[in-house]
């Protein structure tokens, strides 16, 4: 009976270990899951099959997420990072490997084919900078522990009429590099790098045509009632705010200081000032 039990245990452990290895290999293919989807967003797998992306859906290596105009999606990556795909964009999740720690084998590679996206990086790329990479037509962006946004304006696109064709990279937090065949630049917070094909990347003023992340209000001015009153006087930025009314902390001046004197010698009652 005892021998039977031991055999069962051994067999179970062995089978589980084998299957877990298989499972782990399979799990490595999942880059993340859709946390938020707004508007028409599609996902295309390596086999070219396309379907609507829904909240909770897995996004796998080699999948491409495509957003329509006005549509956005946020993907929660397995390493804790967030990828927000902007409207009218196409982002391919080339490769994602992460086994719960930075062991040197992790990687996160993207190709931005059209439009833009924002990435708040997770654990991948924290230590091994080379393991995180974004490729666009003509340039490569490397990051290490950062919040950044990348935008690609393709030739012939609607935007190309008003904005130079090329890759734009804006950093919110941390630092990125931008590399073309001509060289590499570092981009710091609230800076924007621009790279056109076969040109040395350069820092430029932030282009708000590209990097306005949220849609303008539909109802402007008095024509429509804005929804939500907002926290009008909250000290939300941590900065010290003044009050509208005096705090009256100051000690009041003594307005009642009046001496009283002795008889003034005239026979009249004492003068009181």
């Amino acid at each position, binding site marked *: 009976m005892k021998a039977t039990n031991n055999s069962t245990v051994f067999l179970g452990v062995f089978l589980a270990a084998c299957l877990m290895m298989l499972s782990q290999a399979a799990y490595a293919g999942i880059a993340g899951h859709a946390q938020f989807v707004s508007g028409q967003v599609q996902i295309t797998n390596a086999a070219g099959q396309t379907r609507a992306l829904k909240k909770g859906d897995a996004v796998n290596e080699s999948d491409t997420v495509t957003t329509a105009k006005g549509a956005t999606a946020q993907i929660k990556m397995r390493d804790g990072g967030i990828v927000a795909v902007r409207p009218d964009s196409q982002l391919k999740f080339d490769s994602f490997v992460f086994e719960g720690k930075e062991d040197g084998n992790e990687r996160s590679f993207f190709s931005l084919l059209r439009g833009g996206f924002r990435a708040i990086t997770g654990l991948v790329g924290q230590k091994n900078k080379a393991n995180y990479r974004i490729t666009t037509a003509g340039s490569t962006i490397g990051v290490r522990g950062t919040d950044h946004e990348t935008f690609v304006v393709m030739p012939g696109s609607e935007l190309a009429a008003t904005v130079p064709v090329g890759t734009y990279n804006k950093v919110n937090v941390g630092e990125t590099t931008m590399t073309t065949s001509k060289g590499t630049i570092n981009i710091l917070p609230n800076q924007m790098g621009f790279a056109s094909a076969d040109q040395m990347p350069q820092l430029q003023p932030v282009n708000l045509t590209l990097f306005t992340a949220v849609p303008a209000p539909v109802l402007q001015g008095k024509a429509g009632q804005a929804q939500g009153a907002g926290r009008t006087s909250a000290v939300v930025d941590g900065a010290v705010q003044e009050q509208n009314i005096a705090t*009256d902390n100051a000690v009041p001046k003594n307005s009642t200081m009046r001496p009283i004197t002795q008889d003034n010698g005239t026979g009249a009652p004492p003068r009181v000032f």
Partner: protein
Amino acid sequence: MVIMTMTTDLLTAHNRPILGFPGVTAAPVIIIVMKFLSFLIPSIWLLFGMLAAASGAAYAQEAGQKDRQRAEPVVKSPDESDPYEKLLRDAEAMIKSGKPDQAYTLLKPLEFERSGETRFDYLIGTAALDSGKPDMATLAFERVLAVNPDSAAARLDMARAYYQLGDMQRARTEFSAAMKQNTSEAAKVSIQKYLDAIDALKAGRRLTASGYMEGSFGRDSNVNSSTSQPQVQIFDGGGWISATLDTANVKARDNYYAAAAGGEIEYRLVGNWGLYAGADLRKRGNTALKQFDTLAMDVRAGIVHEAKASRLRLGVLRSQYELGGLHNSDFTGIKGDWRYAFSPSNQLNVFAQSVKYRFVDPVMQPNDIDQQAMGLGWRYVLADGQSSLSGSVHSGTEKDVAPEITVSGYVNPVINPGGGRNDGTKRFKGVRAGGQTDINEKMTLFATAGMQTGDYSKINYLFLVKRKDMVRDAKLGANWHLNRLWTLRPQLSYSRNDSNIAIYGYERTDVSLTVRRDFR
């Protein structure tokens, strides 16, 4: 602790630990458990392996079966709706009570599941913003605005998040968009402050300036803060006699007008340091009682240190006071004021000052004092951001410093035998509380009330008591923001001093209407 318990309850709602069996001794239980485990462990491994295999197989299968790969939202049982609602309310309460970091910790585990629900997204956004995670806040506000671009609240907080991130261009864009929305005048005033700050930064300006001008008229029931009783009993050395007060020291009412103007400049030096200077001029004239017209001129200057959540000012001040067209007194001193925002809802204010009050008229000079005072205040902003409460306490001393003053024309020319003032040194302490709230888009209602006690050191030789005062005051008013620069302020104020020396007691009511123009 309560929060942790609640969170744990939520997390373990469907996986509660198995409790022990009362009455069963430990040894047999261990044997039973061991036997049970000898069967259970391989079974678990087998089951786990099968599940893992199923997962792998699912991945290996054709993409059409992706439903298996979806991280399915947890199916809600009806009784879970209340805990979730409670969790949101708790998070709101935490943000309101200045604990946004706790609110963020509470909400964060649900972010994946609840993203897309605008109430949740706005809450976690504000929790992130208020706890110093503006990058995460913008992600949440992006979701709110993707669903509802007309959410003025989310847009305003999005702008603030950009401001915190130092992304002034986008902050300006969103503040401007928020300004164009149908937001309240109070909100517009707040937004304008941000826009002005952004403009100053953009221009690289080291110098910022602001000013104001205002005019008032009103009715004051006691323009000279005097007692209403015309006669008092005083001790003349041999006994008590009745003394008639000069009419100037008896309560008198009048209509008045007032005008004031002032301004302040701040010059940024290196780092967080800067210089400030300011001045105010205040004139008040009575319709009939011209002898109580006042003119005050204040100037101040000093250094300022401003970090993210704190603002420290140390400086000197000087004031000249005229009464009835005559130079009455001068005040000179130093003052320090430190404000620190513990959270977006809670702000501490500590202040201290040392001021010399000196009178010009020799008859008044016995009242020369050196005043030292300090206090601290707290301001609490309610979660809707449209209301706030404040309170403060202070205490200090007024040391009488005058030498013996001799004035000719009196029987006893020394009007303050032994020096100092007749009542001696004063120790005082006080409290103050107030609040303000936006009652509609253009109107802010405010109210304050304060009390201060004063205890004097000397027995007043005319009244044979040590003077004790209790000053109380209250103020109620409204700021009607005609636009972002013009404000109309009706105000009612009441003050009284209860003193054990009759001549110092008074009661005063003042009603006024002020129009103010700010310059930025």
